């Protein structure tokens, strides 16, 4: 078995101050197979990938690549050997063009050895087109949405004819249609005989694309084998380390909220939001206790809508009122004072403060509320932090660990905790469960449901149709910055949503 494996890791161990991230982990990647790597947030998946690709040096263990022992001391070595990786946090250069990001380090050159931009742009456009992404490749990457950026990262890795392709949560910002494209690519890569290592918290994706699976729990390998032999429930049980009955009993919690009274004053009313090129008169109404989903494809204007409501996107016209009171537009501070909080799409650039501790990240925003006469009770802080860390299962060595050191999913949980402890009136959630494991996802959904029941208004965006449909009381469907349909009550189904996306019809 070892002889034929492309990549074979034995007894990998890696510790960080205060945590054992990996201990005695084995992983074998045979050619022509898609191998799933699963586990809870903080289980060690990303760390394992970084050890395999030379970002971190392992403390113990051996790595062999195509039959001979290797030690990659930096990502470049792994890449040159034929291992392409898409890391969890999209790692591209925001200021540079899409084409440059695709070709950095292997740009086409003309016969004088100078960069051939025309060839590069043509090749980039062609490459992305084959992925169903149509963008002007000369634009700086930062002007594009998270979905496109993720596709660019994938295209970059898959384009380089690798023997091993490693994808760490490549679909967290992708729409179903883009996921399909990605899977086509993975199938192609597999058919060419490459080994693929695939990380995702979306179980149905795993079952669609993966052949075998390795389950990590608390840095240890707890299972390895063909995926087909495991039921979903068994897989979840392995990941969480709980027995089957317990999970069955708990069921899969859903966003769950009291139906709204149509007569109540809306807690949030946005009217005619218009922003050049992006939004054209969008209306959104949320009543207390209601969860309103925003439906739409990439580029439909969903993130822009919530950002306009939160004041972080300047609007040309339109008005927002919270609980009947008008809110000054274009000001994040004003929106916050009115009780509007937003979970941004991109947690890396406008989310967590990586150098501050978990405690600070959670309570900083709530300080005014927690302080009495300018003094902040440490005990009350600790109580709040403790509650959220438990409820959301934030995995950190202590509340004083730097957030930047947490796993991707745990950073997302910290962000959520920070918003929730501010006791907002309106919660704008842009992909709230991105990168969060199944256990915690149910918990987040339950928590949001509870808050809604207490009268909070929620606007929800999710690239998973299922999550929008299950979580929302009503859905506002957007296309090209316009509201094309509104689904309520019995109409909130996946079929109706897809139909509305398709023809923009419905009820107007």
């Amino acid at each position, binding site marked *: 078995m070892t002889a034929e494996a492309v990549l074979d890791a034995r007894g990998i161990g890696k510790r960080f101050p205060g945590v054992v991230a990996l201990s005695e982990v084995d992983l074998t990647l045979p050619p022509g197979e898609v191998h799933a790597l699963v586990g809870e947030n903080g289980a060690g998946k990303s760390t394992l990938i970084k050890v395999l690709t030379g970002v971190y040096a392992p403390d113990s263990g051996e790595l062999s690549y195509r039959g001979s022992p290797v030690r990659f001391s930096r990502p470049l070595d792994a890449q040159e050997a034929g291992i392409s990786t898409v890391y969890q946090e999209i790692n591209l250069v925001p200021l540079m063009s899409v084409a440059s990001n695709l070709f950095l380090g292997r740009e086409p050159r003309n016969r004088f050895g100078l*960069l051939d931009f025309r060839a590069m742009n043509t090749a980039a456009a062609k490459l992305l087109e084959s992925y169903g992404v149509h963008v002007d490749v000369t634009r700086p990457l*930062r002007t594009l949405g998270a*979905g496109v950026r993720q596709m660019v990262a994938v295209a970059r890795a898959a384009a380089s004819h690798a023997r091993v392709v490693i994808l760490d949560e490549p679909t967290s910002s992708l729409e179903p249609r883009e996921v399909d494209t990605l899977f086509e690519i993975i199938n192609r890569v597999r058919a060419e005989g490459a080994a693929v290592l695939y990380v995702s918290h979306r179980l149905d994706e795993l079952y669609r694309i993966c052949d075998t699976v390795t389950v990590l729990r608390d840095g240890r390998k707890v299972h390895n084998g063909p995926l087909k032999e495991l039921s979903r429930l068994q897989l979840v049980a392995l990941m969480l380390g709980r027995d089957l009955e317990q999970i069955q009993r708990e069921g899969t919690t859903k966003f769950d909220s009291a139906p709204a009274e149509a007569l109540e004053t809306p807690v949030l009313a946005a009217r005619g939001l218009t922003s050049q090129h992006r939004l054209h008169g969008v209306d959104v109404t949320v009543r207390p206790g209601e969860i309103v989903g925003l439906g739409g494809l990439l580029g439909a204007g969903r993130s822009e809508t919530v950002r306009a409501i939160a004041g972080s996107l300047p609007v040309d016209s339109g008005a927002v009122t919270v609980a009947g009171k008008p809110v000054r537009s274009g000001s994040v501070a004003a929106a916050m004072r009115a009780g509007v909080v937003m979970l941004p799409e991109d947690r890396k650039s406008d989310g967590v403060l990586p150098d501050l501790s978990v405690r600070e990240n959670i309570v900083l925003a709530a300080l005014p509320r927690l302080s009495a006469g300018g003094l902040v009770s440490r005990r009350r802080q600790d109580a709040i932090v403790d509650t959220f860390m438990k409820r959301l299962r934030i995995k950190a060595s202590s509340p004083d660990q730097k957030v930047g050191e947490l796993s991707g999913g745990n950073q997302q949980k910290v962000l959520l905790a920070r918003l929730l402890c501010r006791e907002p009136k309106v919660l704008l959630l842009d992909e709230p469960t991105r990168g969060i494991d199944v256990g915690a996802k149910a918990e987040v959904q339950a928590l949001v449901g509870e808050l809604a029941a207490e009268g909070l208004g929620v606007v929800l965006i999710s690239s998973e149709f299922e999550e929008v449909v299950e979580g929302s009381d009503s859905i506002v469907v957007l296309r090209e910055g316009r509201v094309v349909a509104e689904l309520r009550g019995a109409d909130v189904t996946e079929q109706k949503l897809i*139909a509305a996306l398709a023809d923009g019809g419905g009820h107007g």
Partner: protein
Amino acid sequence: MTAVTEKTAVVAADKGMTKREWIAGLVQRRGSLVVLALIVIVSTVAFDSFATVDNARNIAMQSSFLAIVALGMTFVIISGGIDLSVGSVYALGGVLAALGIQWGSLTGILLPLVVCGGIGMLNGALVAYGRLAPFIVTLATLLGARGLLLAITDEGSNTRVMPRDALLTQLGQGTLLGVGYPVWIAVVLFAVGAVMLQRTRFGHSVLAIGGSVEAARLMGLPVARRTMWLYTGSGLLAGLAGALAAAYSASGVTIVGVGFELDAIAAVVIGGTLLTGGAGTVGGTLAGVLLLMVIQNVINQIGTLSSHYQSVVSGAFLAAVVAIQAYLSRAHLGRERGT
């Protein structure tokens, strides 16, 4: 259903930039050039002695030394670093040239290049492999090079004079088509630098490193090696500029170059390079250098103004540019991502 299956992933691409963003981008990139042109026009009208061949020659010569130093600084700053040592290294280069020339012109030019390049390489190694902050590392070599300078000149008491007829001295003082060699050298270096930054993999990777070191490393770019060469280049160029300046004045003077690094940084930033790295142009730096030098020249022309006002005006410019950069990057945030 058809619309969903159709390729609808067209994002932001077709949404052109707004006029305001377009103007903002232009100000960032070409602002220094426009201001330079304005000052030149106004000064030409206001002072008879400004738009003369002699004065232009004078400005060009004065600019060439700073320009060569600022060229290396441009690359370093674009990569997200800073090189504070160039002022001391510049002075050291001059003294070493004057020292080395006693064994011939070749030694006179090689000695400063080797030593100054070596100091640059030390900077680079400490930053790239030692993972130390560039600010601290180059501050240390700023002090170190100054110390070395004083040591080899007996506390600066002996100023070495370079023989007038030596080849190296001629390189500083001679002219081609009425323009001094140092100016030609600077022009050639800038042309090469511009091509390197914009049209080579090297330059591209420097932009990437400055844009995001983490991403560059994960993309498999040779970050450490690049970084080391950047600082080496900066040291080399500072040494070269120092040697040329010494040749021009036919003497190696120890007191030059104090605060020169700040002029270089100012020129780079005024030229539109982001102090945070990731974007900038070599041409912008040239405009920045000329702007500083023209302002200095104009203040001298006015005569009644103390030359200290030069710093005041340069400082005001710098503040304005940095403020505009900050404003622009905030304006950009507004139009960041699509859904």
